[in-house]
């Protein structure tokens, strides 16, 4: 993160290395951490002894704040959002917060309406409808 520009996720000013980093939605992290926890369960009696506080708190958090619980639904969300020319960061914020209206989506991720971006309201509306469809079959 360069010192000159102040960090601001709303404008996607989060440092070049993070713009290119892979971000994960809560539901994706939940699947990964749960799987890890199960692996540890197979290796010892009390897996909680094997995991750090950071791991445990994060697991609790993502389990609670995952909109999609099964692996197929999670994959679908990523797939659908990936069609809309979003950065990794924007994709994950939308996947996590699941805004219901175009207005809410823009409030959550203002950068999608920044100058030069291709997302008019119709496109955003379609995107929200596409994700909403997945929830019904979760």
């Amino acid at each position, binding site marked *: 993160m360069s010192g000159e520009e102040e960090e601001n996720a709303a404008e996607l000013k989060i440092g070049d290395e993070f713009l290119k980093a892979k971000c994960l939605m809560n539901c994706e992290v939940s699947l990964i951490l749960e799987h890890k926890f199960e692996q540890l369960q197979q290796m010892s009696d009390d897996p909680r002894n094997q995991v750090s506080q950071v791991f445990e708190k994060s697991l609790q*958090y993502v389990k609670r704040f995952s909109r999609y619980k099964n692996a197929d639904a999670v994959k679908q969300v990523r797939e659908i959002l990936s069609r809309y020319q979003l950065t990794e960061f924007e994709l994950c914020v939308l996947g996590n917060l699941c805004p219901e209206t175009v207005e809410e989506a823009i409030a959550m991720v203002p950068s999608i309406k920044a100058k030069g971006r291709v997302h008019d309201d119709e496109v955003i509306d379609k995107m929200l409808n596409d994700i909403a469809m997945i929830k019904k079959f979760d």
Partner: protein
Amino acid sequence: MFLKTELQWNVVIPAESLDAKGLMLQKAIIVRLLDDFAERKATKDLGYLLALTTVEKIGEGKVRQHTGDVLFPVTFSAISFKLFRGEILKGVVHKVLKQGVILRCGPIENVYLSSSKMPDYNYVPGENPIFLNAKSSKIEKGTTLRFIVIGAKWLEAEREFQALVGLHADYLGPVSGAPSASMYDLP
């Protein structure tokens, strides 16, 4: 935000453990890496280190002159958690004070929401203190809040982050824990 990044760390294997060859050595290196990873806990750049997902490559070992230990460069992928200024996410109220509330978000326990950043909410003292607004929206221990990150500070000595957040924009504030309800499902 949860991040997945590729890292390269050096793992030091003491001279005594070097009798092991092949898979045993590889296992020793990975076990050491896991220990180092767990001990590191968090870094300023990546945030909190949650889990190591895959080991991509173990490079050639280099002997350290004076100790006889061998240093192996290991490339691996890991998941971390970091808060970005301007990011919007959810947290759970853990403590209610006159000056504001303390939230938990992911692995971070010290997320501060000042009363000055809770527009229209007023402190109501009592055994179970709460914040209340004119529309009877309540903020108390256990409430889930959607907030915006104002800033995150890395504390080098404690190896942890502190964050300042606010509710001073649209669509922020208490949200239901249930997946289908929205903030605006009010009578």
